[in-house]
């Protein structure tokens, strides 16, 4: 049967990782290609890159990184961060990424999803959805869409947006809980389950992983198809193969990393 996926997420600015990734030899490596290669060899099922570059020059550098990554790893990887046009998406796909992740630009301009899905197929289009708890009447699900890197609340219902994006043609949803992000206290299971149950496309849980148990919870209680990991692997708290072994030992279908 289909395995659950473990996906490290790397933030890149001006061609370098924004947080050092610590490997066994205790080096902090700023090179995203090197980091991607190591995670590939450790058994990552996929890799996500976020380009948090502000400048046009930085974007050019980032495309070079994507090309180098495509030569170094032979698993799928997606690219997100600031993509707002089909031509920008085409650039990263031609550079070697399998998928593009759309976030704020899709909220501001929903037809962009349909344009991207028509141009590249739904399998290549991921919705990056940042959600946080909300008591607003406009958010009956109890969760609100937040854009611009978590800085701007939209007052728009997160569940309704997930369904709309699926209808428009996204092939996958990467659901990041703003409340849980960076806490290492565990994924936000309520919203993960809420959205996973409502849509047919796979959902990637994101934000809050601090222990192996958290991943298991997201993939079972949260019903996610995949778990995104960042700090928990970047700072060498856990190796990917250790996390996968834990999941496998607890009955989770996983691609063995050996």
């Amino acid at each position: 049967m289909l395995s659950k996926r473990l996906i490290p997420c790397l933030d890149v600015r001006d061609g370098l990782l924004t947080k050092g990734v610590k490997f066994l030899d205790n080096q902090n490596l700023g090179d995203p290609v090197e980091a991607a290669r190591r995670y590939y060899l450790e058994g990552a099922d996929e890799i996500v890159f976020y380009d948090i570059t502000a400048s046009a020059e930085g974007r050019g550098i980032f495309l070079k990184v994507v090309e180098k990554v495509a030569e170094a790893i032979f698993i799928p990887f997606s690219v997100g961060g600031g993509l707002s046009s089909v031509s920008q998406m085409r650039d990263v796909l031609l550079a070697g990424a399998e998928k593009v992740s759309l976030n704020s630009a899709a909220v501001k301009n929903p037809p962009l999803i349909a344009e991207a899905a028509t141009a590249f197929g739904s399998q290549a289009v991921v919705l990056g959805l940042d959600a946080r708890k909300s008591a607003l009447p406009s958010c009956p699900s109890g969760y609100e869409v937040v854009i611009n890197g978590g800085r701007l609340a939209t007052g728009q219902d997160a569940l309704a947006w997930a369904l709309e994006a699926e209808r428009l043609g996204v092939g996958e949803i990467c659901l990041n809980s703003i409340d849980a992000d960076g806490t290492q206290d565990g994924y936000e299971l309520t919203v993960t389950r809420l959205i996973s149950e409502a849509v047919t496309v796979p959902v990637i849980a994101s934000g809050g992983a601090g222990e192996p148990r958290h991943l298991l919870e997201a993939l079972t209680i949260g019903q996610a198809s995949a778990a995104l990991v960042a700090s928990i692997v970047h700072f060498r708290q856990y190796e990917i193969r250790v996390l996968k072994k834990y999941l496998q030992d607890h009955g989770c279908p996983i691609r063995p990393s050996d």
Partner: protein
Amino acid sequence: MIAIIDYQAGNQTSVHRALASLGVPSIITDDPLALRAAQGVIFPGVGAAGQAMARLKATGLAEEIVHLAKAQKPFLGICLGCQIMLERSQENEARTLGVFPGQTLKFDPQVKDEAGAPIRIPHMGWNEVRLTQKSTLWAGVDPKDQFYFVHSYYPAPAKDLVLGLTSHGLEFASFLGREGLWAVQFHPEKSGPPGLKILQNFYAYCQKVAHAQ
């Protein structure tokens, strides 16, 4: 030399890079002469069947692929390039190449997986391939190895063409064809070391055939 068929389908460069990592020479081309001259041909693909068929017909590549298959050119179809080898597809109700008897069907979202949960569509991620017939393409591949899939439609070929099965709510043919004329639903170029092994086996087969001629 391996020729990768170029019909603007998207993943031809991924296949090219994977072959390069193995030291296998390849070209991405839509030139029929280059395809015929190559030791073997890889037919990759992502996207929708209808659009892909329209492009293949407009460029004359549709006829050329049927010709290559008849001429017993070592051939490997990948993903959409696997589905298009069948007679027709439920996707866009497209009439496809018909190299293999059978059709491409849509996954039914009502179907449940082994754990009792509704299957996710697309079938996206890593899954096993259970060989039903021995194949040179699988030499050195461990039965526990998994491969990367991403698709919403699945191949349903004639029974005697099934070489391997994968389970996603139902069992479908993820590996099909006959010796030298193969098609896989997953992406070997994105399936890590076991995927690369399959590409390497394909190249070894192509070289063997070329030397025998």
